[in-house]
């Protein structure tokens, strides 16, 4: 358990007490940030999105420009507390890379990048649904989960994602309710 989630645990377990809040605040809630600075982290986001949805026989997140989607949606459609959590999560990831691999995230090897993201994926959330709920309500969705959500949304609704990685039927004309699944059938892109 790292310092932050340790403090968060204390905070949540002791309830919404003024004392613990001030302790927590001291470390995270007042760290200054400007969400528009996400633009400066475009390359890192592109790399992260590609690790989540890599290019295979079909295009991956990077070529679908999912990082631009993530930045746009985070800036325009998310509450400040969510922006804060996302931004500081991203900064933590960069910091973790420097501390543990002594290089910037973008300079890490593929395997190292994978391990770093895995570390953060395991950090996201408690193993307790109630705690998760309280946590999400107070501070927004954890960094990795939000990153993955936005990556999925951005990718599956992009032209490349919808038409190449999924099956996009622009004007179906007819509805067939019960047909055999074809070999390697892809999911429909839209409902």
């Amino acid at each position, binding site marked *: 358990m790292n310092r932050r989630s340790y403090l968060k645990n204390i905070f949540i377990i002791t309830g919404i007490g003024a004392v613990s809040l001030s302790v927590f605040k001291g470390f995270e809630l007042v760290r200054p940030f400007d969400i528009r600075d996400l633009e400066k982290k475009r390359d890192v986001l592109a790399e992260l999105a590609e*690790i*989540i*949805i*890599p290019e*295979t026989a*079909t295009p*991956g997140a990077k070529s679908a420009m999912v990082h631009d*989607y993530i930045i*746009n*949606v985070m800036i*325009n*459609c*998310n*509450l400040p507390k969510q922006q804060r959590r996302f931004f500081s999560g991203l900064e933590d990831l960069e910091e973790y890379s420097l501390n543990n691999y002594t290089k910037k995230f973008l300079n890490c090897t593929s395997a190292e990048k*994978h391990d770093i*993201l895995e570390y953060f*994926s395991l950090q996201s959330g408690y193993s307790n649904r109630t705690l998760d709920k309280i946590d999400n309500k107070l501070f927004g969705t954890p960094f990795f*989960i939000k990153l*993955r*959500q936005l990556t*999925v*949304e*951005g990718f*599956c*609704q*992009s*032209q490349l994602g*919808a038409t190449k*990685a*999924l099956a*996009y*039927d*622009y*004007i*179906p*004309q*007819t*509805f*067939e*309710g*019960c*047909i*055999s*699944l074809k070999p390697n*059938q*892809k*999911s*429909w*892109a*839209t*409902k």
Partner: protein
Amino acid sequence: MYISDKNVRLNTYDAIVIGSGISGGWAAMELCKKGLKTLLLERGRDVKHNQDYPTAMLNPWDFELGFNNTLKDVEMNPIQSIARGPAEKHFYVNDTDHPYIQEKPFNWFRGYHVGGRSLTWGRQCYRLSDLDFEANLKDGIAVDWPIRYKDIAPWYSYVETHIGVSGQKENLAQLPDGEFLSPMELNCIEKHLGDSIKKNDQNRLLTIARVANLTRGWDNRGPCQNRNLCSRGCPFGGYFSSNSSTIPAAMATGNLTLRPFSIVTEILYDEHKKKAKGVRIIDALTNEVLEFYSKIVFVNASTIATAGLLLNSTSSRFPNGFGNDSNQVGHNLMDHHSSAGATGMHEGYQDMYYKGRRPSGFLIPRFKNLKDNENLSFKRGYNIQGHGERQEWMDKANALTGFGKDFKQQLTTPGPWTVWMAGWGECLPYYENQVTLDAQLKDKWGQPLLKIDFSFKENESNMMTDIHDTSAEILETAGFKNVGPFNYNRPGGSTIHEMGTARMGNDPKTSVLNKFNQMHEVNNVFITDGSCMTSSACQNPSLTYMALTARACGYAYDQLKKGIL
């Protein structure tokens, strides 16, 4: 305000229709077809079929922020943004421009433009039956409906034949069959569920939804292309709306004058003739106050707005509001509840899929309280509406773990079959559920703000508990796994089936309208939107509004011809 004789002549019509939504469009068409010069007033902008559906042909990637509303938008539109995304935003009002007061949480979803909510409606078309028309009398609740099924049945047929309803005949007393185009098709899991329901209880069945989506070309529209983007407006005319059907038909007669940006503030009463002489409006663009006159007035402003208009139309004869001697105007507000239901997952049919996006689901017609002695903890009943599908990326995204190749592979292939279903339940009419005018607060046109005071009560909450348990039981019996019953507990208004604020009844002392939707106290005013409903039944109500409208138009024209009006 000075109005010259010439202006009076210019501003005089045979009929005025207030509101161009699903019932107003019908009133306009019917009256125009009968040869009446008709003025159709709409408070918002014009929306022309096909020309004004800007998002109808867009792809998901054409929306820069996906289907997320912006923070700013949500802040400006805290209510409307619950119901719509950026793809339908232009068919919903701006909450900041059109505020209302919630005494208790109430979602009032609105579309102020030509066509109103007929553009965004759910298109479900179900007839009421005598089980519904007799219910108030039997239970001693509110007042008796002044009509029975036989009075409205031919008008249901008339309306269905015009709008085009796809559906399956099932020969049920509680849900009469209509004039149907061929039904849409159930998918594998829905058929499976239907088979299980039929096998386990011979009084229950599952049928394809009856919807105003065309399964063949009809009235120069359609067929439906199975895009499931109805609420953006359909360039194929695949579903019925005022814009695609009744308004163009009214226009074609040469008798229609459509006047958008016309906020009707009052119905004017002629103390000598004891009739309505017309209406006063504010032009939303110029703020000019104008009057229009007519022999008859149809009020189709939608339940809550109609109540507000009547309450705002005071005179020495009607100090409490137009035609409101009964003091029932604004009261008895109802909305169906649709918060309770269940979801489940099925492990079968792994090798089966579907093609196309059917814009409808299934219906389990009402099966409770069909008899008198069922001893349930609630009166009346509910039907269950839902749909089956295989999990797609949006359903799987949060349930999958990890990331990378395997994650992508799972994300982009069909998941297990699931069913979501919920009970659409009857809401009883309670006098205290009401719409009033605020004494102080005004909107930007100086009109009093509407105050909505509504809550579901014990009967509705007991019914929701039954839906919750019964839905889960139905799915479990059909072999579904991970069955999750739910109750979203959404506030009133969420089903967008407001009704009851100017109810029909036999007695002028306890109701506002007679059996022809004619005001008891002002015989040249007819109200045929949802406000006329004496009880809510559990069926989606638009079809009934349309049938009552057509019926009232026939009656009004007849009376006019006979010189009675």
